[in-house]
């Protein structure tokens, strides 16, 4: 980074003695002046609040301290404690990613499309994975409620970090106080955790966490701003203030052995798309780093073959400069860097006002096929009733050695299948029994025979 010239420093000092220090993070005298003004306003507010409590505050020393913190690179949003996200003022705390303006642009554009929809369901369910401060669902809610009265929004925010959840809870409470409508929940879950792996961490996989909290398994819209920076990009493309002060957990996906740099950067997307399929999301909006990653994600979504349409949105998707549809009919919309990938299926097309929609039955069949239950082909050949719930039975006979354990496991699976069916039949009545998931038990062979184990952390 080039040094700041002496003449500029002198000029800044002539304007205000605090300015030269702020030039280091801002690089620009106007930006530094703005930041200094905001810091002064913040100090005035703090002093006023202290005075109201009957306390006193030395304004000069506080300002000096804040300016020196900012000069060392600490983000202004952490110093002031808030960041504007669309129309909302979101509380920020160190340890949780600061909301970005680009994310707000994507969310606003999504709601702009949704609010003109002819018929939205009376209860719209929004699932936000890796919620952080909770900014994305809160802005979605704010924008939708200011435009429409006929929709009730149910929001679920999921994050793995307890710090983030605490902050999101605070932000949600504040939002609910200013506009008491709809429902908001937060749960702690790990999105990338494989539900069938042995667990030793303290966060549950998403599916299990949903089940444990008694939350519905199906969600209409899935949005996510997951960590998406690969380790090499983390060291080369992020700014110093991001590296030094923002949590790496929210920026770089966890590393897994035998995995390339790009694969690690994209780690969340396959899992998010799988979740989108499992919760039967009709609209999916995922934030990405750049055009290359956007195209990789779009390709993955296309390969899943459940979506009716896929779009890549740039930083300003509201500007209608549509590039010609590239590979796999994925059109790129807007101006700036590529920022998010939008996928829709079934009723989602009508909600977004898109032309490409498939019939309800086709959509359901495609969704069903993507689990690998049915061979790809004509639906009529696939069996008498392809829409019935199916379970993974051992199709090949187990070997001699595995017979007893496989026998027990099959028995357990059969029993849980019956319970699951019973639950399905009760779904309409709203009676939900809280029993373990079908896959929750397994057997192992020990020295004293078979032992039943519960698959739980």
């Amino acid at each position, binding site marked *: 980074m080039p040094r700041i010239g002496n003449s500029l420093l002198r000029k800044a000092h002539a304007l205000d003695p605090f300015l030269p220090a702020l030039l280091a993070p801002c690089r620009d005298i106007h*930006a530094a002046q*703005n930041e200094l003004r905001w810091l002064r306003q913040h100090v005035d507010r703090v002093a006023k609040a202290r005075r109201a409590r009957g306390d006193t505050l030395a304004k000069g020393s506080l300002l000096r301290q804040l300016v020196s913190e900012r000069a060392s690179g600490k*983000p202004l949003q952490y110093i002031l404690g808030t960041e504007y996200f669309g129309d909302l003022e979101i509380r920020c705390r160190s340890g949780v990613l600061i909301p970005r303006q680009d994310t707000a642009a994507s969310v606003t554009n999504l709601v702009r499309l949704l609010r003109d929809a002819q018929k939205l369901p009376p209860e719209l369910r929004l699932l936000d994975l890796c919620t952080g401060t909770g900014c994305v669902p809160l802005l979605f809610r704010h924008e939708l409620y200011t435009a429409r009265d006929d929709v009730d929004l149910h929001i679920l925010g999921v994050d793995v970090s307890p710090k983030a959840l605490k902050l999101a809870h605070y932000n949600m409470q504040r939002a609910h106080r200013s506009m008491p409508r709809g429902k908001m929940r937060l749960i702690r879950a790990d999105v990338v955790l494989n539900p069938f792996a042995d667990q030793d961490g303290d966060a549950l996989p998403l599916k299990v966490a949903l089940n444990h909290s008694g939350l519905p398994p199906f969600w209409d819209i899935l949005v996510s701003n997951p960590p*998406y*920076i690969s380790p090499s990009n983390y060291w080369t493309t992020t700014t110093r203030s991001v590296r030094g002060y923002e949590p790496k957990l929210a920026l770089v996906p966890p590393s897994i052995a035998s995995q390339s740099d790009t694969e690690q950067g994209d780690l969340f997307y396959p899992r998010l798309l799988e979740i989108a399929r499992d919760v039967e999301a009709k609209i999916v909006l995922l934030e990405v780093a750049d055009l290359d990653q956007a195209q990789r994600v779009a390709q993955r979504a296309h390969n899943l073959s459940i979506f009716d349409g896929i779009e890549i949105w740039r*930083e300003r998707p509201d500007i209608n400069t549509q590039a010609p549809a590239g590979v796999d009919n994925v059109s790129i919309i807007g101006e700036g860097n590529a920022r998010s990938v939008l996928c829709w299926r079934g009723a989602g097309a009508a909600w977004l006002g898109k032309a490409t929609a498939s019939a309800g039955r086709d959509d359901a069949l495609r969704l069903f096929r993507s689990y690998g239950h049915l061979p790809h082909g004509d639906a009529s050949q696939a069996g008498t009733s392809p829409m019935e719930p199916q379970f993974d039975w051992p199709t090949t006979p187990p070997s001699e050695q595995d017979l007893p354990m496989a026998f027990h496991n099959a028995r357990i699976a059969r029993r849980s299948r019956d319970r699951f069916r019973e639950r399905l039949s009760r779904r309409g009545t709203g009676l939900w029994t809280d029993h373990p998931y079908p896959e929750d038990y397994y057997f192992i062979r020990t020295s004293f025979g078979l032992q039943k184990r519960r698959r739980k952390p």
Partner: protein
Amino acid sequence: MSILPRLRLLPSHASTPFNILRAFTTTPPLPAKSLPPRPTLHDADLIEKFLHGSGPGGQKINKTSSAVQLKHIPTGIVVKYQDTRSRTVNRKMARKILQEKIEEMELGEGARTRIKQREVSGKKRSAEKKRRRKYRKLGEVEGEREREEGIEYGGGELDGINEVEGAKEVESVGDGAKKEGEK
């Protein structure tokens, strides 16, 4: 109190409870002279830019600047606004300023900014006049009183001085006399 109707006499933007004025009469106040309507801005005529450095965005950088630059294509006026941290507020303010500039260009002295400016400066001028009148009057009264006091004072202590005009001079003369006395 409850019999009297309560009237809100403020424009709609000032809706905090501290700003409610209650009238003694039910006669509504005369409305202020209406200002010319704001010119409407069409989105198609505007080029809006969010100014931030080039390079990667998203999670990779955290920007504090949310500056907005608006260009009005028909007139070529460019407005930049970056005073607040909220991009939404910056956009609104930039639009407002652009409207005002277009109006000034179209209407000249009849534009609402000029009218408001004239009103403010007129009020300021009359307040200044009032202030000057008041102090002149006060000054006359004080002067008379002090002249009387001064004469008494001078007559009592300093025999040699006959014409003393203001209190200041009396004091300075008195000080000088004291110092002389000390010496």
